[in-house]
């Protein structure tokens, strides 16, 4: 099943935004099709093909999902159910543990993608290998094969590691100049350790800073990424080595107060940090239950041509003279980046990078 945690959060959101989403939909009543389990039309494929393949047409979706589970936040929540033909979720938890549903899929309703994959692969019985390329043994790829996945496959042997304190020293030497000695960021580079709340209540609220502790769903990603790409000027450095990358991983997780068990055990300076400890931390990344598969689109408007409803006009209430403008230079010229050009704001775009 999909993660309990995110289901609860999504339900809370559905309440928070109740009304606004359906009011925005601009849809008309549509006929509901036959449904499975009281929810979805089992013959969704027929419905889509009868509608010339228009699987995202507002009326087609309504015929398949019914009106309630079609639009906005309600539609989003409905798609957390893997049985929904429009869901990207997979009914599978990789390690049966605490790290949520890590799988996503192409929704069943995207029929043309599946048709194409069948023609090119699943139903292709005529393929004859060209015989191009040279067979190679996995053992020859040791240097290149640096992928570590969310389950920890690809991590070094548990004998490879160092104390967190030793890891901290390497971090300060090779990383601190850009990321700050405690992961606070420097020189325009983003921090690695902040504990900002990710929930915002108003559109104008500053964007929450996303870092390892409050945002990253996997600890394994950290080891993979810093070994893969850091130090920036010479990645996967032999003078750091797997043991050094492991030690730094421990230090960064410690800086983010990542726990090791249900009792809240923290990473200690003299802990020998290795792949086993990394996999413990991997189960207690606090944001890991808050990710869900991309379920866009959740907006299904009809193509209105004249006298469109207020919800789709101007500011969303029908007023076309209520708009936001960019700042202007003192001579009145509209320009980009005015606060920065006027040296009022530091560099940045109001969000935590791309």
């Amino acid at each position, binding site marked *: 099943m999909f993660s309990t945690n995110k289901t609860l*959060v*999504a339900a809370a959101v559905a309440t928070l*935004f109740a009304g606004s*989403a359906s009011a925005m939909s601009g849809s008309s009543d549509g006929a509901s099709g036959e449904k499975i389990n009281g929810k979805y039309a089992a013959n969704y494929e027929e419905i889509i093909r009868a509608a010339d393949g*228009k699987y995202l*047409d*507002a009326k087609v979706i309504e015929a398949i999902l019914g009106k309630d589970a079609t639009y906005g936040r309600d539609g989003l929540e409905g798609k957390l159910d893997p049985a929904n033909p429009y869901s*990207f979720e997979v009914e599978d938890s990789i390690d049966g543990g605490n790290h949520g549903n*890590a799988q*996503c899929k*192409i929704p069943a309703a*995207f029929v043309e*993608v599946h048709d194409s*994959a069948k023609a090119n*692969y*699943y139903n292709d019985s005529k393929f004859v*290998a*060209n015989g191009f*390329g040279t067979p*190679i*043994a996995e053992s020859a790829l040791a240097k*290149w*094969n*640096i*992928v570590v*996945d*969310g389950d920890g496959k690809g991590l070094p042997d548990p004998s490879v590691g160092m104390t967190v304190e030793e890891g901290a020293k390497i971090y300060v030497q090779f990383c601190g100049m850009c990321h700050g000695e405690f992961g606070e960021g420097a020189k*325009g*580079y983003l921090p690695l350790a902040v504990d900002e709340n990710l*929930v915002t209540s108003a*559109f*104008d609220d500053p964007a929450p800073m996303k870092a390892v502790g409050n*945002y990253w769903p996997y600890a394994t*990603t950290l080891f*993979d990424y810093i070994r*893969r790409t850091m130090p920036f000027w010479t990645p996967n450095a032999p003078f750091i080595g797997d043991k050094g990358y492991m030690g730094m991983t421990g230090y960064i997780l410690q800086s983010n107060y990542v726990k090791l068990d249900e009792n809240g055990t923290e990473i200690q300076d003299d802990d020998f940090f290795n792949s086993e400890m990394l996999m413990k931390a991997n189960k207690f990344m606090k944001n890991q239950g*808050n*990710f*869900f598969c*991309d*379920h866009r689109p*959740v907006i299904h*408007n009809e*193509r209105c*041509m004249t006298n*469109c409803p207020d919800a*789709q*006009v*101007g500011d969303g209430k029908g007023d*076309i003279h209520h*708009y*936001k*403008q*960019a700042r202007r230079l003192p001579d*009145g010229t*509209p320009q*980009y980046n005015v606060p920065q050009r006027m040296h009022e704001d530091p560099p*940045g775009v109001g*969000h935590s990078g*791309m």
Partner: protein
Amino acid sequence: MTDQIVEKVAVQTEESRNQSRRAFLKGSAAVAGGVLFTKAASAAEGAGYDPKKAVAPYAGKPEITEVLQDGAARKSLGFGVRKYPYGMPSPFEKEVQRRTLEWLTPDSMASITMTPLQSLHGIITPNGLHFERFHGGVPTINPDEHRLVIHGLVERPLIFTMDDLKRFPSISRIHFVECPANGAMEWKGVQLNSVQWTHGMMSCVEYTGVRLSDLLKEAGIKPEGKWIIPEGADAAGLTRSIPIDLAMDDCFVAYAQNGEALRREQGYPIRLVVPGCEANMWVKYLRRIQVHDVPAQHREETSKYTELMPDGTAQRFSWYMEPNSVITYPSPDFKMQGPGKYYVRGLAWSGRGKVAHVDVSFDGGKNWKEAHFTSPVLDKAWTRFEIEWNWDGSEAFLMSRVTDETGYVQPPMPQMRTLEGTNNVYHRTAMVTWRVHAWDDGKNGGMIENVQY
């Protein structure tokens, strides 16, 4: 015709031009200066137009007329062949460049430039203007030393040279490639007055390469192989996880763009092409494809390229680029030339297939008219649209709205904001609005401004 122009211009003065402008302001003649030498002028006669008082724009401006003689280009020889063995644009086009916003990123090796959409025509982006996005700078790779390995959960791990890859059957396809952060700076409002800044993190070129399904089948995927993890040979070693169904749909490994080898900025010697999907999945400098049972959960699919929602949850694996459109002319880089007829044009595209309709509104979304296409309509490619507009000189709010072949209709910004908040960073694909200032709006008359509802 030439004589006619000279005669007319000769009698025109700056004063008469101003009279003309005042006439427009009174609304007595909704005729742009630019059409006076055509039959549009006579068509306007019925509306009280007097040809004897005809005036033109630029009246009294000798720069319009002094070129009506044989100049240097006519009186001397130009340069010979092979002056430029690899041709360059005219020096007069030097302003047409990729540009970046220095404040977006702390250094140039992990940064982005935008394509000057306002200066492009048709649907093909020239290779030198293709947008750039690097996570670790651009490597200069010798193709003789480049290899592609397919391994992991396969029957026959294989290593390919460039010569091997070019022996496979080839395909050529025109596709757009778009960074999901295109438009990211405008979630909370507008701050950029150019379509290069608002939509320039994308390009559209013709790619040639080898079907990924052919390569994967050559290696033979084991039944438990459900994902591929492509990886680059550059300092970023960028990785993403792609499900097999998507990999087998229409992906390919490209070695050419617009008829020549890929540029280094776009992944020379090879890159993955994932039509319709986020550009960060189109791994450049591709050197390895690992077939795997689960997604890797790497940095570019967890920490980055996930969309934070107002409730603190986040969307992951947001592969497809939503249908989107933008008016490129008129747009904030231009200024209106006076009331009258315009051919409004722009680009529409969809990550899920072909563009079906583009509608344009001049009144902020209340009423719409269908534009026609002036380019081929191709799968997951830019489509160029155009629509005639008679501007009466009053304030207008221009928007374009795409409907793709799946029936999806591009939403307005307030609707997207209500559902997704303003901290997503990625996939800001709602409509944008160009406010055309009224012709009589003082010194800003005719200015085109990016505004957001």
